């Protein structure tokens, strides 16, 4: 009996190999250009907004926080009306990596779960992607902080 199972497993492996070889390769160059240009443009918009805030007298750090708020607002709006996901189909990481992608993940996953209610549907699902992101961000920062506490004591 084990021999039959081995034979079966081999067949499955062969099939998976074949399936992997037939899978369309992503158009790497085209995707890269899209990601670079769209990601770059989103950051350029961020820089323009940040320069405006610094121009009206905010410190660099405050201007940076205010810029994040504006970018998140714009991304939440663009996701709601459906523009951001259209952009994301072409831009890939160019629309995921900027903080607008974080806002997009929050809105997109929450919208789908409205039928589960506004508290445990929308309220919970805004964290389905944002939650893990924050958990690991907080954990690493805390760990680095603890390292510093122990080194300096």
């Amino acid at each position, binding site marked *: 009996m084990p021999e039959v199972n081995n034979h079966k497993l081999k067949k499955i492996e062969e099939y998976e190999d074949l399936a992997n070889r037939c899978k369309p390769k992503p158009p790497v160059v085209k995707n890269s250009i899209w990601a670079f240009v769209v990601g770059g443009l989103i950051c350029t918009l961020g820089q323009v907004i940040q320069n405006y805030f610094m121009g009206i007298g905010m410190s660099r750090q405050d201007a940076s926080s205010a810029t994040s708020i504006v970018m998140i607002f714009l991304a939440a709006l663009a996701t709601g009306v459906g523009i951001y996901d259209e952009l994301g189909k072409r831009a890939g990481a160019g629309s995921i990596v900027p903080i607008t992608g974080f806002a997009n993940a929050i809105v997109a996953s929450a919208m789908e779960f409205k039928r589960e209610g506004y508290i445990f549907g929308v309220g919970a699902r805004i964290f389905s992607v944002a939650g893990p992101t924050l958990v690991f961000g907080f954990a690493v920062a805390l760990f680095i902080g603890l390292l*510093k506490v122990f080194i300096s004591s």
Partner: protein
Amino acid sequence: MVPWYMAFLIGGTLCLIGQLVMDLTKVQITPGHILVGYITSGAILSGLGVYQPLVEIGGAGATIPLSGFGHLLTQGTLKAVEQKGLLGAFSGGIEAAAAGIAAAVIFGYIAAVIFNPKG
């Protein structure tokens, strides 16, 4: 002030790296993995002192990508540790990132309530 083309260049490059990771690795990488990966690497690079120079050169090109959010968490934590010691290690990061987190939660919730998914 950082010129816009440096923000474009650095921001574009950070996004390009993410795209290459998605396209060239065998494992299935979702947008969620990219976000977690960027915030984590940003926080670590910031702790090693590598990220701040990137912010000096690229401005929003380095702070708008989610790695910049990780950088903000680490720098907030380190600054608070200097002032408050152990307590700062717990409070500093989230304090520094509070504006972004609050905006994301509130605007995200409102947008999800007002709009409906397309298609």
